[in-house]
């Protein structure tokens, strides 16, 4: 049987990715026209209108950080399974490889947005620490200014994203070279272990610790939580697995990836199930300790989200919806073996999980900058606006993943563990 190893982009996928990118660009233009991103911030406008620029940058930062971490976690998937010498993902490993190719696009895009906000925009509702006059009066921010300052922010972000891209592209180059190598040549295999190990260390020092502190936690700059980076990682990781699963099933439905069976889908489903619970574990650990010790400077974070009782809590709905979508739904839907092997059910859950963690990032980012608006902080219009920007990023991911998929055979056929993947049995 000849395998269909060469992916050709179907017209439908192209149309969808163009349409989504179009929505994204349109939303961005609307934002530039109506939200005045480069105007002076406070000053002339009052109330909700003064926050136009904040909303513009927030939607861009939310989506670029979220989607960048999601596509990066698919390289984390490759690195982790490679280092563990796991053979089972080999039948579809070119899919996460292609998804991680988006890092080449989303990495620079995210960096451009973040640096534009930090250096060019006059707004400082998102990062209070970039307002130097304000920092001098605020002793907590002054104390943290060795870490939270534009220069260090830029250097660390550049170094982190640069290193991820370097490791990813190195791995990909070797993986493609292996296709042309002789049958018995396993030199790639040993090198890939080293690259994976080095990447995981880098990833641990960036996504698992410092970067979320800087990119996201510094929005609520007075507040801190040691769980935060793990929590951010768990969120992007489970969404990343769902994205891999969506592309694998899409390719299977198109008649590609003949060697991927229900067993592989079952294992990816297990990952989604398990890491949804892992995410909940971290969410709850963070919440319960803060709730239990009840210190004002710590509970602040949840007061901003659940709202003080007299204000009705503008983020209450988002807050609990987040838990329902990301914990209860995967727990109940994916618990049975049959549902993890049912394509329709896993696709539905994967989309739900990706949306859920997008929502998770939304409620991590939005309340901080907008909390002074009270009941107007969480408006439906802004939510839809942010979704529109998100659609643009989804379009980018669809377009470039498809492009990276066409660049190589869908099966890394010379890898020594391919057979293990083909006969994989849970």
């Amino acid at each position: 049987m000849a395998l269909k190893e060469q992916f050709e982009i179907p017209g439908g996928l192209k149309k969808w990715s163009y349409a989504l990118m179009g929505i994204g660009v349109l939303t961005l233009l609307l934002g530039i026209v109506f939200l005045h991103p480069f105007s002076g911030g406070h000053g002339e406008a009052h109330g909700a209108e003064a926050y136009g620029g904040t909303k513009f940058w927030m939607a861009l930062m939310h989506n670029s950080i979220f989607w960048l971490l999601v596509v990066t976690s698919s390289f984390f998937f490759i690195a982790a399974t490679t280092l563990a010498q796991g053979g089972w993902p080999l039948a579809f490993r070119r899919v996460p490889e292609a998804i991680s190719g988006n890092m080449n696009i989303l990495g620079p895009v995210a960096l451009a947005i973040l640096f534009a906000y930090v250096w060019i925009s006059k707004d400082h509702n998102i990062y209070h620490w970039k307002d130097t006059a304000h920092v001098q009066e605020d002793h907590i921010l002054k104390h943290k200014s060795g870490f939270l300052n534009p220069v260090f922010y830029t250097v660390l972000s550049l170094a982190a994203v640069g290193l991820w891209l370097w490791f990813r592209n190195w791995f990909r180059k070797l993986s493609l070279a292996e296709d042309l190598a002789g049958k018995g040549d396993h030199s790639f295999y040993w090198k890939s272990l080293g690259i994976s190990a080095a990447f995981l260390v880098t990833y641990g020092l960036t996504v698992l610790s410092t970067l979320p502190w800087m990119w996201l936690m510094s929005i609520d700059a007075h507040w801190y939580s040691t769980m935060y980076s793990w929590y951010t990682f768990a969120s992007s990781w489970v969404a990343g697995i769902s994205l891999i699963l969506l592309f694998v099933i899409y390719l299977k439905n198109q008649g590609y990836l003949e060697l991927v069976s229900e067993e592989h889908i079952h294992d990816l489903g297990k990952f989604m199930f398990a890491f949804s619970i892992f995410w909940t574990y971290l969410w709850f650990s963070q919440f319960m300790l803060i709730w239990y010790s009840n210190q004002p400077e710590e509970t602040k974070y949840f007061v901003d989200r659940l709202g003080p009782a007299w204000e009705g809590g503008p983020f209450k709905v988002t807050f609990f919806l987040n838990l329902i979508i990301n914990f209860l739904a995967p727990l109940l839907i994916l618990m049975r073996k049959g549902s993890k092997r049912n394509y329709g059910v896993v696709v539905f859950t994967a989309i739900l999980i990706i949306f859920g963690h997008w929502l998770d990032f939304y409620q991590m980012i939005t309340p901080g900058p907008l909390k002074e608006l009270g009941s107007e902080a969480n408006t439906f219009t802004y939510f839809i606006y942010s979704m529109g920007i998100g659609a643009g990023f989804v379009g980018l991911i669809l377009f470039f993943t498809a492009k990276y998929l066409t660049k190589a055979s869908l099966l890394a056929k010379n890898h020594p563990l391919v057979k293990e993947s083909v006969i994989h049995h849970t």
Partner: protein
Amino acid sequence: MSVKKFVVGCFDDEKTLFPAVKNSRKAGYKIHDVYTPFPVHGLDHAMGLRETSLHTAGFIYALTGTTTALSFMSWVFTKDWPMNIGGKPHLPLPAFIPIIFELTVLCSAVGMVLTFCYLSQLAPFVKKDHFHLRATDDLFVMPIEVTEKTNLEEVKSFLQSAGAVEVFEKEAETGWWVGRYDSDKKMFEKEEIVTA
């Protein structure tokens, strides 16, 4: 349980075992069980065993744990002995969740282990015949139950042609019984090696 008569075929390789299992099912022989020295992937499907219901049992045990913990703590802290702990409400749900979680896991884990032992007839001081001592070492042992309709010679020649290295008849207890390995001779009774 009862003592039944079996024709036992012993194989020294998975490669001969799988076709033998498949062909004896096709021929309509009743396979009592297959004893292997290690877990063999796919053998359950080859034997046509149904999927286990152990998970369903586990789910029910887990729910039992959840409701026990939740209802007991709620009762204690609202009705039986309300206490003011750090000014928290009398029904502090977040504080209950770790204990609810622990009891859920404990009940489902212990319950499933005990159910598993019962289903596979394992317990301290309990014995079960596995037809050939080498089934725990290097032999795949497949006993075929002898009923009124079974033609003994036919089954024996079938097993031999299927590649069995050893074929014998044996009367054995099918269930578990309390006994000790050193004093109980039941295991070695009425056994006769036909071919080698």
